[in-house]
């Protein structure tokens, strides 16, 4: 019987596991990460590749947190995950191809 449960219903049941308190905690985390992002751009000597990598990692953390918990993609069926991440990979491929075409990939950051 459980096997007949629609995938979307299962996803909703999982989504219900997060309470408003959880969402406030996630928002607090996102706010702190944003504050850290801004703060490190003002630290003297913290620049170059180290700054770029730090900002990209923090940006990716925020991006994935919103996608996983606010958009509930973590609890969605494989098809929806596949579509979104396929689009994300497509965007990254487009990004790299465009910059490579103009020989600008290494100069970008």
């Amino acid at each position, binding site marked *: 019987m459980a096997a007949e449960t*629609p*995938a979307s219903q299962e996803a909703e049941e999982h989504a219900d596991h997060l309470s408003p308190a959880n969402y406030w905690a996630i928002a607090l985390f996102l*706010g702190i990460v*944003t504050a850290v992002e801004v703060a490190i751009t003002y630290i003297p000597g913290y620049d170059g590749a180290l700054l770029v990598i730090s900002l990209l990692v923090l940006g990716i953390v925020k991006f994935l947190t919103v996608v996983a*918990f*606010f958009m509930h993609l973590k609890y969605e069926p494989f098809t929806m995950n596949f579509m979104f991440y396929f*689009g994300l990979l*497509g965007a990254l491929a487009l*990004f790299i191809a465009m910059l490579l075409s103009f020989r600008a990939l290494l100069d970008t950051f």
Partner: protein
Amino acid sequence: MAAEVAHTTTPELDIRKTAMWAFLASELMFFGALISTFLLYRGRTSGGPDAKELFDIPFTSVSSFVLLMSSLTMVLAHNAWERNDQRQMRLWLLSTAGLGLVFLGGQFFEFSTFVHEGLKLDTSPFGSSFYMLTGFHGAHVAVGVLMLSAMVMISYRVGLTKSRGMNVELVALYWHFVDIIWIVIFTVVYLLQV
């Protein structure tokens, strides 16, 4: 009869949500192209002002924080909708729309300041690509505010219950998407350029 209705509507709802994810995936590629274009042209200022001269990071950080918090209010609206708490849902939907308007006001102020300082749409490839990217994002926020306002109006007229479809969930997905795009823009276009 009720079971029949539930049985026949569930696959349809699933398709709408799947279609929304497909749409968002295509939007990722759209913004990927705009961000790539900006990165290609960011150094071509044609004698006009560049990012270091123009960008006000503390101001943009506040705008980013406002948009992040609008994602919180949106997910709280979605949570209230799942609990069928219409009053809370309306409150959070209105809060989300309000925060979206604050973000748009900030963007309008930022654009006005940049134009005043000499960066217009046709000043340089840097200006064109910057306004195209952030302008398209702003347009997406504006569409989101309209959709949120429509949700509130519909909820007053007929109510937004789960049995009436998953409109709140679809609008929530769109709104969070607008937020994640801004996360990328804030990092790549603003923080990495100053």
